[in-house]
């Protein structure tokens, strides 16, 4: 990392907060996972991670020292993914047939473990891609990240009751999407 923002980082460190460097080291893997899980086969987690930390570094000095970094970074990631998915969906509409992503799952044959894992990931990705952003966030945080309902509510900035409703709806839609793909959980 360069020292371009050393002044602002130092100022934040002197104010008693964490440094950008420590946040970068601590959250890089987490952010890239969020990006992969919230994204789609057409969204590169590396791009999202890079864009997030670039934006975070640009606005680091403006960040309140008492900010909840977990929720802040998760929402940043989610917003970036949503924006990127919207763009990619628009691009796919021009470039590829609508079911181009699903063709990977339906045609891939699990002849060995590697192919099976690849086919499963493609199937899950295609099913997740059918969910709305809100449903997807709740499902990812609860089922894949292992957060509790309260933690999901804190990270997404919604009420706990809303989280349960969204989770129920997300599970149902995900299952329906899997069924539509013609694949059954084995």
């Amino acid at each position, binding site marked *: 990392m360069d020292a371009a923002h050393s002044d602002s980082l130092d100022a934040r460190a002197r104010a008693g907060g964490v440094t950008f460097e420590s946040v970068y080291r601590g959250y890089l893997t987490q952010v890239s996972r969020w990006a992969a899980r919230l994204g789609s086969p057409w969204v590169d987690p590396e791009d999202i*991670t890079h864009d997030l930390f670039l934006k975070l570094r640009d606005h680091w000095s403006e960040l309140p020292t008492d900010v909840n970094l977990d929720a802040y970074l998760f929402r940043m990631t989610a917003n970036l993914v949503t924006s990127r998915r919207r763009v990619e969906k628009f691009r796919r509409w021009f470039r590829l047939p609508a079911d181009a992503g699903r063709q990977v799952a339906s045609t891939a044959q699990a002849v060995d473990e590697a192919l099976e894992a690849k086919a499963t990931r493609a199937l899950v990705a295609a099913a997740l891609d059918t969910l709305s952003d809100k449903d997807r966030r709740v499902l990812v945080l609860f089922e894949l990240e292992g957060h509790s309902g309260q933690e999901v509510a804190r990270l997404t900035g919604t009420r706990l009751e809303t989280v349960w409703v969204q989770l129920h709806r997300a599970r149902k839609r*995900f299952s329906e999407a899997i*069924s539509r793909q013609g694949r059954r959980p084995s």
Partner: protein
Amino acid sequence: MSWNEETAALLKRGDPAGELPSDLERRVAARLDARHPSRVDLRWVVAVVSLAAFGVFGANVVRRVLAPTPETFAPVTVPSNDGLSPRAPAKPASSLAEEAGLLQRAMSAIDRGDGRSALAACDEYSRRFPAGELKVELQVARLRALVLEGDDVHALEALAGLPHFAKTTALTILQAQALGRLGRCAEFRQVVGELEQPALAGTCTEK
């Protein structure tokens, strides 16, 4: 199809984060290091160039606003030349051919010994082209025509009005002859002296 443990297991097996590249951290760090300084530099470059361009543009605008325009001066009144000293009329277009024609007419008349026609051609030239391109040549033609007509007085006046470069030896001889005929022997001898013809000096008779 409803949510059950198998579906949850499928979701975990197909976790999109399961195939993240192992060198993602290094790649993101490299991109951040490569991109951020250039962005900072680019901002400064854009800012400096914009300020410079705006400064130049602004200076030009200020200069134009403050620069005196023709409308800020009082209109200049050009005095009329009517009734004052004669002003050279404008030369008509393509007059040189006509000037040469008149001069040729005068010279032809001189060659014929017709001083009157030559003078008429010279008068017409002076009337039509008072500031003509062949004015000096016309003065010489008039001088020779006056000599032909025996008007030595006006011939000498015409000779005096010639520019120095036009006073050839032939004209000086004409001048000496005219002075001799007029009996202005002092001037005659001076001119003959210039001609380095002292033998001619005794041919003049004072009148």
